[in-house]
């Protein structure tokens, strides 16, 4: 692991979830809320179309941070996010982050997940032990 310094960027993660991703995430997570998988239902409750699971975006945020430890699942010790804008399938998500503090082997990272100008996840605080 290269030495990290305050202000360093986390490797950017770019993902375009396909049309059926919410169905696969629903199956994987057990969250079958119809706003994620049923176009008609989503429109009936006033959404433009089905939306991504917020926790899918949090999963991508965790994945982007794990990259700092070459994907080692033991590295991420804490992750706190706020869910903001709605995310949609078939549009690119960009997860980026900046190292906020380094104390010994503890690294804190500020992360954001965006789709275009919409922030899906804002001010995500990640703590890693590297």
């Amino acid at each position, binding site marked *: 692991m290269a030495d990290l310094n305050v202000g360093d960027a986390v490797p950017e993660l770019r*993902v375009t979830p396909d049309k059926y*991703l919410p169905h*696969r*995430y629903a*199956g*994987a*997570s*057990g*969250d079958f809320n119809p706003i994620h998988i049923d176009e008609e239902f989503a429109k009936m*409750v006033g959404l433009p179309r089905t939306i991504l699971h*917020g*926790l*899918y975006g*949090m*999963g*991508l945020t*965790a*994945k982007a941070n*794990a990259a700092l430890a070459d*994907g*080692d*699942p*033991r590295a*991420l*010790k*804490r*992750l*706190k*996010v*706020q*869910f903001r804008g709605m995310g949609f399938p078939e549009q690119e998500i960009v997860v980026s982050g900046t190292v906020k503090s380094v104390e010994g082997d503890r690294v804190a990272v500020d992360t954001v997940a965006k789709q275009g100008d919409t922030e899906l996840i804002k001010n995500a605080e990640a703590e890693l032990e590297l």
Partner: protein
Amino acid sequence: MALKTDAVGKEWPASTYQVGREKIREYANALGIDNPVHLDVEAARAAGFRDVVAPPMFAVVYSSPAMAPAMFDPEVAMNFAAMVHGGQEFEWGEPACSGDEITTTARCLSIEEKDGKGFYVFETNAVNQDGAQVARGTWTLIVRGV
């Protein structure tokens, strides 16, 4: 309308989840996580895990069943039609591996009204079969127009 806060401090019965290799694979695939420690038992063991290990955010998979009775409790009385998931935090301890039996307990930390919205905060505490803490979650659910 005043928000019902009777459920603050309430704890619900624990739920137990058995972690399995194929469920970890399904989760990792949905997230596009391809580190072999999540997919291949030999790779996982070579990296020092008992068995295939779950990505950290798999915590939602084993913790969510404990949240269901809390969210649907009439004493909590949440209006689901107007509810959004506002925030989430996890703190991780021992990694969760295939074969683990994880027991999660949910508790209501607070119910507060802010700017006409109800903020319902729950905590889940997940421990494995050895009693080691696997993940502590803080779930913030927001209900508009309370």
